[in-house]
């Protein structure tokens, strides 16, 4: 139900975008530049997250929660506390992954450049938090739109391999804060990430 509402709204939005494109394209570009300057100004972030997954493989939507932290230019860490401890730490090109659920200790380290689709997925959040619009645009078709209170970014993967898995990523936020990430998978599964900022440390 939620999905159909989303897509209908998207349809309307894109129709509007087409109709107004000569005027709004430029205006939207300005808004994007402004937004990313604002996002990039926050060098360090701490937040709580609640993530809900809707999948045909799951008996019921699962919920997990924990903390997210970001430090410019390229450190992103996600610590899941419930229901199982899991840590993903991405710094530069290196991903370390640790999970209690994995057999054999479940600790892995690998390079992002070895897994381009995963890199693309991670950059949807990391590049946004870093205010790095060129990286985001290299990986995604980026569309900005205004919301009642804030903004929304719709990211459509450029890479066909990524598009096979992910239809689009929608980020919402107010000012320099990201408050929600929605990942719409090509197969129909959906992930909703609610982010509550703990303390935004201003630029030194």
């Amino acid at each position, binding site marked *: 139900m939620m999905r159909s509402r989303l897509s209908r709204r998207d349809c309307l939005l894109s129709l509007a975008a087409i109709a107004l494109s000569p005027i709004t394209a430029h205006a939207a570009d300005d808004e994007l530049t402004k937004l990313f300057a604002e996002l990039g100004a926050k060098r360090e972030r701490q937040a709580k997250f609640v993530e809900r997954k809707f*999948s045909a493989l*799951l008996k019921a939507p*699962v919920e997990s929660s924990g903390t997210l932290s970001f430090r410019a230019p390229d450190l992103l860490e996600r610590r899941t506390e419930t229901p199982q401890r899991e840590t993903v730490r991405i710094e530069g090109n290196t991903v370390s992954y640790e999970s209690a659920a994995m057999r054999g200790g479940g600790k892995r380290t690998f390079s992002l450049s*070895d897994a381009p689709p*995963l890199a693309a997925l*991670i950059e949807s959040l990391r590049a946004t938090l870093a205010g790095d619009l060129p990286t985001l645009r290299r990986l995604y078709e980026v569309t900005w739109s205004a919301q009642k209170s804030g903004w929304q970014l719709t990211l459509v993967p450029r*890479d066909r*391999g990524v598009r096979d*898995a992910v239809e689009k990523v929608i980020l919402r936020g107010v000012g320099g804060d990201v408050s929600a990430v929605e990942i719409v*998978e090509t197969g129909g599964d959906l992930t909703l990430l609610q982010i509550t900022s703990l303390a935004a440390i201003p630029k030194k």
Partner: protein
Amino acid sequence: MRRHALRWGAWVLGVLICAVIVARTPINTDITMFLPGPATPEQAILAEQLRDGVAARVMLVGIEASNAGQVTTAANASRQVAKTLRADPQFAFVANGDPALLASERDRLFDARYLLSEKVSPQRFSVEGLQAGAGEMEALLRSSAAPLIRPFAARDLTGELLVVADQLKPARAPATIDGVWFDGAGRTALLLAATRAAGFDVDAQAHAVATIKAAFDSAGTSALNLQLTGPGVFAVQSRAAIQSDARRLSLIAAVAVGLLLLLVLRSLRFLVWAALPTATGALAGLAMVALAFGAIHGITLGFGLTLIGEAVDYAIYVQVQRSSDDHNRTLWREDKNAVLWREDRNAVLWRGLWLAVLTSSAGFVAMMLSGFAGLVQLGLISIVGIAVAAAVARFCLPDVLRPLDSKRLAGLAPLARTLSHAARLRPVIWIAAVAAFAFLLVRGDRLWNDELQAISPLARGSGEMDLRLRSSLGLSDLRFVIAVEGDTINQALERAEALHDRLRPLQQSKAIAGFDSPAALVPSAAVQQARRAALPDEATLRARTAEALSNSALRADAFEPFIADVQRARATTITPDYYAATALGQRLSAQLVERKGANVALITLTGVSDAAAVSAAVKGAAGASFVDLAGVQSLVADYRVRAAWAALGGALLIVLILAVQLRNVAATARISIAVAVSLAITSALLVLIEGSLTLFHLVALLLAGGIGSNYALFVGMPQQEQQSPAPTVVVSVVLAAATTLIAFAALAMSVTPVLHMIGITVAIGAPVALIVSMAIAAPGAR
């Protein structure tokens, strides 16, 4: 008159037949023809890898962006070129890192996962095993990587795809930008394209190169730059280089030789007819090679054209030596015995010509007996070329050549007189000879350069770009290979599997970065059987899955595709054919060699930092041997030693022929010593100039020896006791040496190493042989 008609009729017919044969024969540049035939199984593998291993079929394509802003353009061009090439049946596979292009590989590996995964065991498919698998799957589906796992998840509860991906992960992978491979600097998009045609099929390779260039032209922009390397590309380039060299340099040589002859003899008529034996000989030689081999090697072509330098000599001998005694009187007034040997002149000339052909051929026969396909070609074209040129000179030229006006040779009289006093140089020659022998002895084994690169028909320096692209792509450098032999392919695979456990510790200790075994793609029958046996039947698996997932967040009924896939795997067997028409199939066909008497699985190694450790680990493993492809050096050296013995045999044969034909010990000794001395001096000079000698220098020394023996023969043939060589003989030999020098000096300018080596060797050898012959071989020398 009738005899004339017969001769010329035979000539015309012969030329026509030869021309038709040559015109229909393709030219190849298969480098392995100039590599020794394999003596051991290891060498056989080596030779096969060089000739037709997958490495010989792969072309590396780089699309370079001229500035950072063009990187996306380069990526797009890479995708477009890959798309074009994949649609072209010339290419067996094309890879550029684009996952979409690797879909068929990924699908096949995914479908075979239960037979490929080393983790498959009965325990893994028990309720506990499935529970653990489900826990992992749930964690993966909750992780950030979930969208990537999701498309396969329902079919792969136990996560076998990740296991297989881990097993087959290359030790080093190229960087990816915008979904396609790039070099480390991020400027050059990289593609791999393997042709279906063999690497030595130069016509097919040339066509493939043209196809790639056209694909780039229609995809690229002016901001992009195409780089193309690989054995096939090199073969095409070197063929073009050899052909253009042979054409250009033979033209230069022909014009220069013609000008010289015209200047000295001032007879356009002679010039025209002198080309007759030369051209006929070269054509006949090529035709014979075409008949014997079905193809003419580019190097043979280049070498054959150098016969100009030797064959034109016959025409000179006939023209100058058959001239009347007036010439001799003009040239050498103080000669009192001129009248006495006038009648003998023609007989002596024909005998000399006949002996010259015999002695030159002896050297080439030795070359042919060395068991080296390329050298057999060179020997054959030389013998046939020389014999035919001499025959045409003997039987056809006297009909058409007119005696020269005696005044024309008068200008050479001082030169002839000076050279006839060359005997005064004897002490100098002996000192030089002793010095040369001593120098060569002291140098010993350091005389030789046995690197493949030195004799490879490729022009120098073309390997650098290849090396760069190759290392960017993380391709195994193919220097180290483990060959695992078995009675059957299956046994070879079993033995390869046994090696995996010996190689893994080496990977951990960083002695090697990784290894690539065909058994990872096609496990042995026993291993496949064991894995199939570990998979439960449908009802059992369904019941266990339901039980395992009862307390999980995962829905059991969502994993029906998993149960179906496991059932399918229970009825599947993987053979090499399973990977047909994919990049993996290409790799396998290079790594599994099936032939009569030997079935070999080749394990390639990447990043070998400690070859001794690998050698030690492989030692004692059944059927396994560790091959260092740099060992091609010892192969070349082996062959070079054989060729040296053959050359020695040829030399002895020449002495024997001289002894039998001349029946004169003194003359035989003089001539043989003159040839030996001139070869020693030539070799020493060559080492000084070139730094070291290769196989091809050795072969060219045979040619120089053959030419030198002709000079020594004409100068040293006993005519009358204590008689100095006739002035006409001296003049003809000087002219012959001059034309030889010109022709081979032109060849020495070639950028193709082989042609350069032959050219410089003979260009030094001819004048040295002339001086030495005049000093030592002449009978009347005081």
